[in-house]
């Protein structure tokens, strides 16, 4: 096999460029058209304007949806991170029967078709006689976000050297003091990262929110509803741009925090004097 053929290496940069263009060009068009002074999303551009952004300010429906998204996002990230902490700690700390199976089952929603999960959750919720509300969205999205939280948290907890807690006890600290002064600060970056990641996922998540929301839509559901009206498309683009920026910002913070922690807590005996 000749992997070093010169012809191939000349094709590769072109392929990579095409790939990234296809992936990111549509997303880049979003902010471009959101500042375009025309209702239609076509070239050539008609001129620069911020009126679509301004129009968002007076939009009560949109603001209500944003508040809903905020409530759902905060609850989902809090809940899934809390559950993730318990599960990740158990899975990284203890060796018990069914540990692998439990881990696999928690991670499974990552690979299940989301629409199937959404439909089954809807059936269960209705069969249980529950009203569709923000609470049902929170419930559904928590299950959905948990695998993401778990992967961030298990990575963080696995790097945690158990002798740190023993050292703290040995130096006279109590079990509770050890948790407060050592365990929590050391795993804090992983927890923060998990909160940010799950909040971002919840903010953007559509299918579960669509099926499980009653009369209170989240932002994603609201945007979908607005797409029926061509005249409202530019404001949706403006809103989409804002959400995109928030997502990128949160995920960047999460990644920076995670990497800094990873570098600092790599206590595995590196000696750079």
């Amino acid at each position, binding site marked *: 096999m000749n992997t070093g053929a010169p012809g191939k290496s000349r094709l590769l940069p072109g392929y990579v460029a095409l790939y990234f263009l296809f992936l990111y060009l549509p997303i880049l068009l979003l902010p471009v058209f959101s500042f375009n002074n025309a209702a239609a999303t076509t070239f050539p551009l008609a001129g620069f304007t911020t009126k679509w952004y301004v129009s968002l300010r007076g939009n009560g429906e949109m603001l209500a949806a944003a508040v809903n998204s905020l409530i759902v996002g905060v609850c989902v990230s809090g809940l899934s991170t809390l559950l993730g902490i318990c599960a990740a700690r158990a899975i990284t700390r203890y060796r018990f029967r069914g540990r692998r199976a439990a881990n696999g089952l928690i991670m499974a929603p990552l690979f299940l078709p989301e629409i199937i999960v959404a439909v089954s959750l809807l059936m269960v919720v209705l069969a249980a006689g529950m009203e569709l509300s923000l609470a049902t969205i929170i419930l559904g999205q928590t299950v959905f976000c948990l695998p993401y939280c778990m992967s961030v948290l298990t990575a963080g907890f696995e790097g945690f*050297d158990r*002798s*740190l807690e*023993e*050292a*703290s*006890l*040995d*130096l*006279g*600290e*109590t079990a509770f*003091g050890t948790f407060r*002064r*050592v365990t929590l*600060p*050391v795993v804090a970056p992983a927890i923060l990262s998990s909160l940010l990641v799950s909040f971002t996922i919840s903010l953007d998540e559509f299918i579960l929110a669509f099926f499980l929301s009653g009369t209170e839509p989240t932002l994603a559901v609201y945007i979908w509803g607005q797409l029926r009206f061509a005249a409202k498309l530019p404001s949706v683009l403006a809103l989409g741009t804002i959400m995109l920026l928030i997502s990128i910002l949160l995920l960047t913070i999460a990644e920076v925090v995670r990497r800094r922690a990873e*570098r*600092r*807590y*790599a*206590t595995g*005996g*590196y*000696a*750079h*004097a």
Partner: protein
Amino acid sequence: MPDTPMIAIDRVNKFYGIYKALSDVSLNIGAGEFFALLGPSGCGKTTLLRSIAGFDNPSSGDIRIDGHSAIGVPPNLRPTNMVFQSYAIFPHLNVEENVAYGLKRLKLGADEERRRVGAALEQVRLGHLGKRRGHELSGGQRQRVALARALVLRPKVLLLDEPLSALDKKLREEMQAELRSLQRAVGITFVLVTHDQYEALALSDRIAVMFGGRIAQVATPKEIYQHPRTKSVADFLGGMNFLSGRTLGQTASGLTVETEKFGTLTLSLPEERIEVGARATVGIRPERLRLLWDDERAPHELTGKVVNRAYFGETTHLLVGVEGLEKPLSMIETNTHGADDLPIGADIRLAYDPEAFVLLADDPPVERVH
């Protein structure tokens, strides 16, 4: 040793399920002593150290520290501090904050706390690195932080779990010297766990050699090297040529043992009674066998053939086959006469001192719990 030992371990057993990690261990460690627990991995030395620290609790038996039973006392209330194998430097704190960690609970006041942290860092020569974080330190520096963090609390006993195993050879030797002088300076009891026999010999006042959860021998480094009690102890601490023999009888000067090729040897009496006519194992250290050059003569000589040779710089290790002996003899020669140039197959003569032999007891059978 003073009348009341600093640590008194009394018939301690430790079971993990059916696995017996410690088997009837009794041991006294004196105040101000540098004591080493030596043995291969899985021999129970770390379990014993962790039992003294309070991380493991014995299944039965008593551990008294400074006269008080420590059974049921959690680690944070014991007058012991530990240097962990991984050093366990708190990654979210800098060097000063690490050292001050245990002091915070004592509420000494900011000035006194700063003074003691500074003094502890000076003691381990880290005064200039107080603001660094753990990941910015070398292995040797991290070890010193761990030492300072433990010593600043002025414990009665400092426990060290393989503290030098993560360091490279050169640094390890430096830290050995430093540990020894640090122990002399602070004057408290040090208990060191190690699997490195040279570390134990070089550092400690006394050594307990452990195998399979039991203590095989407790003695000074010199005593344990020169008069190992059992075959395993002899084998674990450096090389040893084992020879089988038969006991002939007892005289006022000791036990006489008849051996192949080395004739009748008189050995000091072992602690256990040995029947006359019984099989006995004797041993001689490789460095107690000496090559004879040219027409040099010795009162006790043997002839043999070089079967193997390994060059170690200052010394050469030789394996010498002697007719009538089951296994070739191992010997160590300094490279001043040309032992490093001896070809394999060369005929040589060697000299031995009959006084250099030791009688070795058989090892106790490994205990199994069903």
